[in-house]
């Protein structure tokens, strides 16, 4: 794909329905992530209990639920950090996530943003994006890698998107908390993922930063599939197309924000007790 074409997509997320057929990932049945009957237990505690979930390609899905509902464990299973005791996890129709390592899953197109932003603090913002950029990430090619003009342009346009252009040369460790969140998002975008898993992406952001993030996520949906785990219900209401409620390791309810807010079980779980 030429650099210009990529940037046109970037500018106009609405016109990007074509990209839903992600390269290398078979999304012929619309779904891009399939979790089927996933169970994970830690020392007898069932973190996930027969969790089944399908996320469609290009969707912006919000996952909410009380503490301990299994939201982070679900992310761990998808990214290969935790292996399920039972059940299967598929990326598209064909890629079995339980057979891949973390790095392979990241390479296949699932990018993850952590709850606590982790960036390379000693590296400059620019270098953070350079390291994240999609490339041949084996040892030999990495040793010989050189930054070409197209790569510089891509980094520059990502810096623009995440509003960190003026900070490009600063060590990432000196950024504010909200800026680190964005940098981490920028690092995900540099990997050209199909799916973005965002774990509490606006935690610790100012109101203005939260607003800006909401705009950003909405603009990214369609071109990417976003799965956002969030506590902030107002934020979820602002961005969500479809919401999944997790409770005690399985899906309690699923639907639009209005449906969820009127669901009796959900109200009990969140407000009862």
């Amino acid at each position, binding site marked *: 794909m030429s650099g210009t074409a990529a940037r046109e997509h970037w500018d106009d997320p609405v016109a990007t329905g074509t990209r839903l057929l992600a390269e290398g990932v078979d999304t012929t049945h619309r779904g891009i992530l399939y979790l089927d009957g996933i169970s994970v237990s830690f020392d007898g505690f069932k973190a996930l209990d027969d969790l089944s979930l399908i996320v469609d390609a290009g969707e912006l899905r919000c996952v909410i639920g009380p503490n301990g509902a299994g939201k982070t464990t679900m992310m761990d299973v998808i990214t290969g950090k935790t292996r399920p005791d039972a059940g299967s996890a598929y990326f598209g129709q064909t890629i079995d996530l339980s057979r891949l390592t973390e790095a392979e899953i990241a390479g296949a197109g699932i990018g993850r943003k952590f709850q606590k932003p982790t960036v*390379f603090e000693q590296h400059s913002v620019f270098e953070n994006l*350079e390291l994240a950029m999609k490339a041949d990430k084996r040892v030999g090619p*990495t040793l*010989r*890698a050189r930054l070409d003009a197209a790569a510089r*342009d891509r980094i520059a346009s990502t810096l623009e998107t995440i509003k960190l252009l003026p900070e490009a040369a600063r060590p990432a460790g000196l950024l504010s908390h909200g800026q680190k969140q964005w940098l981490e998002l920028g690092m995900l975008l540099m990997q050209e993922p199909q799916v973005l898993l965002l774990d509490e992406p606006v935690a610790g952001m100012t109101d203005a930063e939260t607003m800006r993030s909401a705009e950003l996520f909405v603009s990214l949906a369609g071109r990417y599939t976003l799965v956002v785990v969030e506590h902030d219900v107002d934020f979820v209401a602002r961005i969500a197309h479809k919401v999944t409620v997790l409770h005690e390791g399985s899906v309690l309810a699923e639907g639009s924000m209005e449906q969820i807010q009127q669901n009796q079980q959900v109200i009990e779980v969140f407000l009862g007790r």
Partner: protein
Amino acid sequence: MILGRAFMPDATLGAPRYLSLLSPGGWSLYGLAAVVLLVVFPLLHLTVPADSVLHISDYWVTLIGKIMCYAIVALAMDLIWGYTGILSLGHGLFFALGGYAMGMYLMRSIGHEGVYQSDLPDFMVFLDWKKYPWYWSFTDHFGYAVALVVLAPGLLAFLFGFFAFRSRIKGVYFSIITQALTYAFMLLFFRNDTGFGGNNGFTDFKRILGFPITAPETRMALFVTTAAALMGFLLLGRWIVTSKLGRVLTAIRDAETRVMFSGYNPLYFKLFIWTLSAVICGIAGALYVPQVGIINPSEMSPANSIEIAIWTAVGGRGTLLGPVLGAAAVNLGKSWFTKAFPEYWLFALGLLFILVTLFLPRGLAGLWHSRKKRS
């Protein structure tokens, strides 16, 4: 939105800080050091008469040659510890293995001039062995010995590293295991039956490549080879740490999980730099043995490996040149100290380590950096 490069000079973008291997000033310093070590030093030793003030004596040739070997080891240590954040307390083992590989060749070059005038080295005659054990095969060929210098530490490091890194052994656990590894090898090499001369190791070398090993010209050739190796490894190290791979290594040091989720498999990156570091140590050991004339299992003692870490810390981790200077400074100090107060050297070394950790966390290199910042 489209940003032409014309509007985006690298400086404002913060593109990788080191676009060239060395700065122009760095290159002139590098050239100067090369001329001093490779030309001036040999000339002063070989051509200036011994009674002149400018003459460099055998003592200094051996000492500086030895220190350059240590400096290469410190450089190797910096790649794995300073840049990748993996503290090895077993690097003395790789140094010794390289030394033993070279020592085997040197032992076989003695020929019939040993005490027992046998085909076999004296220690094998003493054990009443009739022929060389299988693992001594071909060690009379210099080329094979050189291959062994690279392969013995390289293979051991590769295998050990593969299993340790695959099991995600990190931090202090990794350090302790490397320490145990070198200790285990020391015990193994202490045994006479292992076939490496037991606690006496190898000594009384006569010649290398047919040249008498004590002749000034041979010694100077070894010195120059060592200096060239040091200068070469400095450039190699610089090339690695300024590459994208170098930035991945420091990223592994600072946030390994993030590296993994960025699509790199840290296992292979660690394995690459760990094995390279071990091989560099092995080469340093091979250069060391013909110059000091002895190799024995004490080189594998845990204290030796800890000393390597101290040189690196004193010089300043993650600076390449710092550890080289650290190795030189500590060992020059050691050679003076062990003459003046032989019993107290280890106390002095321990004190030095504590003082550097407390007051100079970035080592000698940090001193220079903070001076540069202030001015």
